[in-house]
């Protein structure tokens, strides 16, 4: 037998190891590689993930757009309905994709496929799993967002070059939701508990100033909506795709970033507790 191979530790992973976080070996990318391979066998899921927001864009944009000629955004801009709703659909689909991946798929791998039990017997640690799964979710989400943006441009729903930043913004939204979704999944006992996810996601999808401006809501409800994550995702995408960019954008970015980091650290800690007992 040949000499043992101890994985090299580049600077990034050494820095990461010094952080007060669950252990990892800086090998998160290997889990991404595993997921890419697994996905090659199930590419159909890629198609459905792309189709959903496009269907919404055409049904709502064209259907409701025929009834509602223009919308006045919360910042006072007057735009067509497809222009108004497309950024929200981009944000919502980034959320949906990330949540599906990090909840249903993760729960299956955790409880049934026992994937992580095998992974943790190697030098990889719980942090590698958390980072790897979230990264994979972002890569997929990024592909969907890019495809949707192209469709939105073709449909005339994009008005500004700022829209180029809508792609990284979509990835950021995915990051926040994938991380929190993963954290939540580590508390799930059975499939029944997934109703709580639906319970959280559906109202957000409908009421985060997605289909009509925030000003439509009563004052008290407006504050409540402002506190939820998808609202910040929608507002961020809308500002970028309509070219209506102000300092407020940074607030949305900060909100999503903090939420995502909280989720990743929480998920890694929980995985450690669940799997390394």
């Amino acid at each position, binding site marked *: 037998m*040949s000499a*043992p*191979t101890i994985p090299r530790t580049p600077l990034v992973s050494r820095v990461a190891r010094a952080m007060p976080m669950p*252990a990892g070996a800086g090998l998160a990318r290997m889990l991404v*590689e595993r997921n890419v391979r697994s996905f090659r066998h199930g590419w159909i899921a890629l198609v459905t993930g792309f189709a959903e927001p496009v269907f919404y864009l055409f049904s709502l944009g064209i259907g409701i757009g025929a009834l509602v000629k223009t919308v006045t955004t919360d910042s006072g801009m007057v735009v067509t309905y497809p222009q108004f709703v497309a950024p929200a659909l981009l944000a919502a689909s980034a959320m949906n994709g990330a949540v599906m991946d990090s909840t249903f798929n993760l729960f299956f791998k955790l409880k049934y496929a*026992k994937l992580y*039990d095998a992974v943790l*017997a190697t030098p990889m640690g719980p942090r590698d799993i958390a980072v790897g799964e979230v990264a994979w979710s972002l890569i997929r989400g990024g592909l969907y967002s890019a495809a949707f943006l192209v469709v939105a441009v073709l449909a005339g729903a994009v008005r500004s070059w700022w829209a180029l930043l809508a792609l990284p913004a979509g990835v950021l939204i995915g990051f926040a939701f994938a991380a929190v979704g993963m954290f939540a999944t580590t508390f799930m006992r059975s499939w029944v508990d997934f109703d709580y996810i639906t319970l959280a996601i559906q109202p957000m999808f409908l009421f985060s100033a997605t289909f009509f401006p925030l000003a439509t809501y009563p004052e008290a409800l407006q504050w409540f909506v402002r506190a939820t994550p998808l609202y910040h995702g929608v507002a961020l995408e809308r500002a970028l795709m309509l070219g209506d960019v102000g300092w407020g954008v940074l607030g949305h970015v900060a909100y999503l970033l903090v939420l995502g980091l909280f989720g990743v650290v929480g998920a890694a800690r929980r995985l450690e507790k669940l799997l390394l007992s």
Partner: protein
Amino acid sequence: MPDTDDILLSARGLTKTFGEFTAVDGIDFAVRRGECFGFLGPNGAGKSSTMRMVGCVSPVTGGELRLFGLDPATDGPAIRARLGNCPQRDTLDEELSVEENLWIYGRYFGLSRKEVKERAAELLDFAQLTERAKDKVEPLSGGMKRRLTIARSLINAPEILLLDEPTTGLDPQARHVLWDRLFRLKRSGVTLVLTTHYMDEAEQLCDRLVVMDHGRIVAEGSPRQLIDDYSTREVLELRFDAEDHGAYADKVAGIGERVEVLPDRLLLYADNGDEASAQVHARGVEPLSSLVRRSTLEDVFLHLTGRTLVD
């Protein structure tokens, strides 16, 4: 005695508790390079908990554990890089093909793509799975899955291979194929650490073993040595047409060294079984059947704990 450099794995007062429950209760053992070391015991004896700690996937509650001189608490990834782990339940990746399972697992160790492809080809051959390389994992037989799991655990050319109940649930033929593979590994210099509740497996594979019961080690030695120390050379098994075999224990008392009463038979421990059998008949006791056999580790376990290993 080998020098201490050759001790790859050692434990002192190793303890694992889950809440109020103590799964492993202060055990001591040491494993030398190149040997096959076994943990023999019934289900719930603490074997798997011990293996999980040794595999650095379960933190030590108390005592000291060292692998390659390193502490799992601080050097888990570095230790795991040099271990092969074959868990009790197959944890193969069913979303990947047979060969992809090996490739990706090698990548988890940080090995290059080129390296894992080369090793995977060798290991598929070793596991007699080359023809199934492109197949899905799910339709493989239990024996094949086990062999793939073992092949997978060898992808990083480990110095120690941990096997938790390697042949549980396999049919006799599949077990023999697997034992043969494990023999080859041992000959190639891999240190094997395994748990089992099969006496024949322990006798076949282990150079040295410890008998565990209720989280403690109750005996230690080579299979031969344990049988010599805790049992007689032969055993006379007697079956009677009776609900309670205990009633016959008195009638054969004094023949051989001692008598164990099981629900369905009496075990009479004697260095010469045929002689003991003749003495039983001379007393006018007529069993339905009698059988003389060599002592096994099962007898050692029965003597040490008063219970059988497998029901």
